[in-house]
């Protein structure tokens, strides 16, 4: 497999690959490399942090001790910063990289937000468990997750007055997309999801007194249907496979969607809704490696951060600061803006975020000033602009991986697109700079914003 393609595959399907690892894969075929990627994600480890207060309470048979639960929830609120940090670390360093990439995708598909960290962790681990599994089972499990039931009000969806929130978003955002269902379908589906409830520890049960056991007229059916039935019927429609594949394509391949590629994917996906199958199809397709799909996608803030980490590993001594940076760029893990998730693509970029994004590497890793040949730099060199963050960085790891790379190999290991001629002139002109300084320059050009 060509080096360029190895970098591309790992940038999109995982969170990058080091030059030495990539070099090892050159002798393998594309299929073999893709196999390797899947094999590394066969065993999935959930991501948890210690929450002893919750564990104790639930072990004690907590039923009826609502007030104590409320107190624990309040006291554990800052834990979501710890989980954010643990998640970011997992993105950067887990061997289950493909599964983590998929989890991040699903977190922006089955969008949910829960302030109660205990349930939020349960939710994200449901995403991890199903990320490469069966989409139908996945959707059913998401529908029954306490966080989702709270977020889209299924837990207050009663037979006398159904709440349409979940039913609408299920069809609009999770499965079919607008135009493939009617307002009547929403009303009937809402009835099928009545009575969905969870116990305090998060386990699901159907509240028989609030569930509507009557017949529902839904997409040609006229029968008693429950929530699982609704999801089965939705998945019978090819539009569902189409819709999900379109989203996968726009996330993994190109935000400008090629309809015939999506149709190919949907044919594969529709057979059994096997996520693994469709992803394997994408990563082995010729078009995945076509020029228009390499180095042309705008990085999400999380991608930007993990790609900086791939060059020079860094660690925030105060996790709160890391959360601050994520928020500044508009994407904090665990904090999606609304049920549609982050729109992605060019939406990440505006006058404000772009400049922050291009300046980050020098703030994280240098003194806050990007090395350059200009007089302004010479004037300010030596002064520190970057001491606002408390970050440790591993330049030794950089020297080992990148220190001996030839000039053009350094470029392609750091930037996904080929450098524009002007950028190349600029970087080469600064030949007096060290590899470390060059890496900062490379991470501070617009090209580095693309993957």
């Amino acid at each position, binding site marked *: 497999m060509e080096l360029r393609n190895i970098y591309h595959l790992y940038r999109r399907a995982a969170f990058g690959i080091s030059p030495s690892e990539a070099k090892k894969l050159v002798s393998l075929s594309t299929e073999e490399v893709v196999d390797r990627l899947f094999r590394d994600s066969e065993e999935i480890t959930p991501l948890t942090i210690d929450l002893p207060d919750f564990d104790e309470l639930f072990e004690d048979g907590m039923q009826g001790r609502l007030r104590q639960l409320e107190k624990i929830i309040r006291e554990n609120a800052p834990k979501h910063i710890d989980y954010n940090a643990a998640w970011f670390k997992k993105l950067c360093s887990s061997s289950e990289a493909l599964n983590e990439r998929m989890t991040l995708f699903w977190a922006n598909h089955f969008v949910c937000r829960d302030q109660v960290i205990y349930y939020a962790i349960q939710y994200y681990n449901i995403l991890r468990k199903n990320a490469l599994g069966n989409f139908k089972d996945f959707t059913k499990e998401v529908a029954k997750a306490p966080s989702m039931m709270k977020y889209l009000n299924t837990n207050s969806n009663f037979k006398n007055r159904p709440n349409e929130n979940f039913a609408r978003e299920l069809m609009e955002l999770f499965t079919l997309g607008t135009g493939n269902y009617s307002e009547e379908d929403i009303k009937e589906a809402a009835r099928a999801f009545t009575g969905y409830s969870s116990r305090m520890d998060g386990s699901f049960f159907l509240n028989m007194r609030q569930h509507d056991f009557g017949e529902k007229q839904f997409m040609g059916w006229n029968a008693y249907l429950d929530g699982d039935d609704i999801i089965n019927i939705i998945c019978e429609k090819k539009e569902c496979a189409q819709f999900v594949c379109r989203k996968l394509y726009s996330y993994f391949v190109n935000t400008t969607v090629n309809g015939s590629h999506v149709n190919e994917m949907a044919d594969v996906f529709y057979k059994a809704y096997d996520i693994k199958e469709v992803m394997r199809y994408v990563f082995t397709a010729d078009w995945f490696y076509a020029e228009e799909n390499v180095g042309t996608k705008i990085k999400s803030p999380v991608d930007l951060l993990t790609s900086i980490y791939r060059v020079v590993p860094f660690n925030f001594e105060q996790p709160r600061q890391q959360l601050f940076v994520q928020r500044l760029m508009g994407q904090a893990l665990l904090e999606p803006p609304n049920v549609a998730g982050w729109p992605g693509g060019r939406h990440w970029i505006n006058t404000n975020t772009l400049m922050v994004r291009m300046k980050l590497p020098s703030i994280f890793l240098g003194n806050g000033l990007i090395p350059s040949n*200009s007089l302004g730099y010479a004037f300010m060199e030596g002064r520190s602009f970057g001491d606002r963050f408390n970050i440790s960085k591993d330049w030794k790891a950089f020297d080992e991986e990148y220190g001996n790379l030839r000039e053009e190999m350094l470029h392609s290991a750091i930037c996904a697109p080929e450098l524009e001629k002007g950028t190349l002139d600029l970087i080469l002109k600064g030949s007096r700079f060290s590899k470390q300084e060059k890496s900062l320059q490379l991470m501070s050009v617009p090209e580095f914003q693309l993957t």
Partner: protein
Amino acid sequence: MKRRDFIKNSALASSFFLVPAFVKAMDMQLQLPQGFKRLVIIQLAGGNDGLNTIVPFRNDVYYRERPTIAIDRKDVLPMNDELGFHKNLAPLKKLFDAGELSVINNVGYPNPNRSHFRSTDIWHTASASDEFLNHGWVGRYLDTYGSEPYNAIEIGNSLSLIMQGESKNGVVARDASMLHKITSDPYFEQVLKYNTDQHLSEHNMGYLYQTMIDAKQSASYIYEKSKVTRSNFDYGKTAFGKQMKTLAEFINSRLDTKVYYASLAGFDTHANQAGKQDALLKDYAEGVSTLVADLKANNTFNDTLILTFSEFGRRVAQNAANGTDHGAANNVFVIGKQLKRPGLFNAAPDLTKLDKNGDLVHEIDFRSIYANIMEKWLEVLSEDLLGQAIRPVSII
């Protein structure tokens, strides 16, 4: 079908949208009209429940359909013998009494869409319900009449569709001094100096370079021009309050900015609506009224018009979770000194004539409000920006 194909195929799309903006720019004599007037647009995102905002406090249907969440008569601040403000809108009531607020009832569009995202797009692009446009109407305004990216500023974190044009985008500014500091790194100057030919590219790379150029131009302009203006009004500690304060400082610095946009989110009250909406309305009313006071103190209120909308209203009947589901027509607020008909602009919603979903039917098309603002406030031809002739409704 791709959106772009749809536009090409749609009989509704006027040829206007197919002409690239730079061609239009060459065609027309394009200069901003004399006399500086600016527009502030505020979106109450999530679908504000208009019926619990402007409350029909003598309407039996209202109380029957909302047994647990209807606002009690005694908690309403009456506007007449039929409608009244939610009590947390007391600061708005003052503007209402002073003739500086028009409340327009029953605003919407035919075949309402009840998706937040689609309906927001419709409001932002000023499209019909079945028409898909890729550019916002303020963006189109910039395409045709704008000279600098900072002619339209969004006070927030991301650039909304309303601000995105074909050849020009508005800018996002939240913290002018930080943006200025970051942007003035000498390296960025060099990056731009060395790149000249990518700028017109339609690809993401071109977009990045163009945004970088916009950022450099805007950051120093906004910073230099606004750094001496510091508001001493108390905007509280909420995020929306801070946005309003930034807005006041920008306006009072008399930036060359014609349109500002900000949004306040959280109005999607499917469950336990009361507490949430109460807090949001308070946040909104206090923020906006402080802004108005601040502008008055700096003699900029006369030249400022503030439009507030929400992507849709909510269903007349409540749900079982003490909340409301997505609805259709809603009220719109216009605040300014030069209103044609201050106070209640039109009659209260008719709760006995609902659509088949049980939602309010619109009486005024939102695009006719836009048309009026375009013609009378921005002083441009509304047909240019709306792609068709729409009869304006006389608000200003």
